[in-house]
C-alpha cells in the first residue's frame, strides 16, 4: 500500500508528468498571492496602528520582513532540492534549484533595498557593515554565483552537480543571517516575531506581516513553477512527449 502511494508521488519526479501538473497549479498560487497581498497591504497600511517609537516609517516592515524571510527560505528549499538531486539523481530536483535561484536573488535584493530605506530614517544611514546586513549581502552574492555558474557550464549534468554543491555549501550562511542579531552586536534590531515568546506587537501588525509573507510565498511558488516549466521546455526539446505542449502558448 505504501509503495503504491510512494510511486504515485514519485511519478511527478518525471518532467513529463510534472510539466502539466505545474501548469495547473500556477493559477491557484497566483490567486492566493493576489488575495493575500491585497488584504495584507490593506491591513498593514490602513488597519494596523502607527508604531510607538518609529512612527509611520515602520510600515516598511510589511515588505521588509516577508521578503527577507523568503530570501532565506528559498535558499533552504534550494538546498533541499540540491541534496535530493545529488542523492537520488533526479533531474527535476536540479531544475528546481535553477528555477528558484533568480527569485531568491530578487528577494535578497528587495530585502537589502527595503532595509536601506528603513535604515536611513531610523538609524540615519542607508548601509552599515553590520553582521546581519553583510550576511544578507553574501546571500545575494551566493544566488548570483549559482546563476552565473549554471550559465557558465555548457554540459547540463556537470552544471547541475556544480550548482547543487555550491548551493549546499552556501546553506551554512542561512543560520548565520538568522542568528546574527543574537551572536553579534548589531545595529539591526532583533527578531520581530519569535516562536518562543508571546508577540510584542499589535495583533493587526502581526497579521499584516503574516498575510504579506503568505503572498510572497505563493508568488514564489507560482513564478518558480513557471520557470521550472521553461527549464523543462529548454532541456526536453528533443523528447516526444513535449511536442503537443509546444503548440500551446508560452507558459
Amino acid at each position: 500500500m505504501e509503495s503504491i502511494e510512494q510511486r504515485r508521488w514519485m511519478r511527478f519526479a518525471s518532467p513529463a508528468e510534472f510539466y502539466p501538473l505545474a501548469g495547473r497549479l500556477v493559477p491557484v498560487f497566483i490567486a492566493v498571492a493576489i488575495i493575500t497581498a491585497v488584504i495584507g497591504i490593506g491591513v498593514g497600511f490602513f488597519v494596523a496602528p502607527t508604531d510607538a517609537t518609529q512612527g509611520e516609517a515602520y510600515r516598511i516592515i510589511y515588505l521588509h520582513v516577508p521578503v527577507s524571510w523568503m530570501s532565506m527560505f528559498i535558499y533552504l528549499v534550494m538546498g533541499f532540492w540540491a541534496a535530493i538531486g545529488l542523492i537520488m539523481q533526479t533531474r527535476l530536483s536540479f531544475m528546481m534549484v535553477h528555477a528558484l535561484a533568480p527569485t531568491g536573488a530578487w528577494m535578497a535584493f528587495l530585502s537589502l533595498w527595503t532595509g536601506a530605506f528603513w535604515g536611513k530614517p531610523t538609524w540615519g544611514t542607508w548601509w552599515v557593515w553590520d553582521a546581519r546586513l553583510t550576511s544578507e549581502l553574501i546571500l545575494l552574492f551566493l544566488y548570483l554565483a549559482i546563476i552565473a555558474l549554471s550559465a557558465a557550464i555548457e554540459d547540463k549534468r556537470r552544471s547541475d552537480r556544480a550548482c547543487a554543491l555550491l548551493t549546499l555549501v552556501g546553506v551554512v550562511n542561512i543560520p548565520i543571517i538568522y542568528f546574527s542579531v543574537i551572536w553579534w552586536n548589531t545595529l539591526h534590531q532583533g527578531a520581530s516575531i519569535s516562536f518562543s515568546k508571546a508577540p510584542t506587537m499589535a495583533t493587526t501588525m502581526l497579521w499584516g506581516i503574516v498575510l504579506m509573507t503568505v503572498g510572497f510565498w505563493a508568488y514564489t511558488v507560482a513564478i518558480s513553477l513557471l520557470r521550472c516549466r521553461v527549464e523543462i521546455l529548454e532541456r526536453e526539446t528533443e523528447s516526444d512527449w513535449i511536442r503537443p505542449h509546444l503548440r500551446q502558448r508560452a507558459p
Partner: protein
Amino acid sequence: MSIESLMEFWSMQGYGLYVWPCIAITGVVLAVEIFLLQKRSRRHLKRIRKSEFDHDPAS
C-alpha cells in the same frame, strides 16, 4: 475621504519618501521578473518552432 487625510496618508508623517520607494521597487522587481521569464520562454518556443519548420519536409 478628504484631500487633507489623503495628503496626510501620502506624507506618512514625513516618512513617505522612504515608504513609497519600497512599495515601488517591489512592484517593479516583480514586474521585471515576470517579463524576463516571459521573454525567455517566448524566445525558446520561437526557436523550436522555427527549427521544426526548417526540418519539416512537407513545407
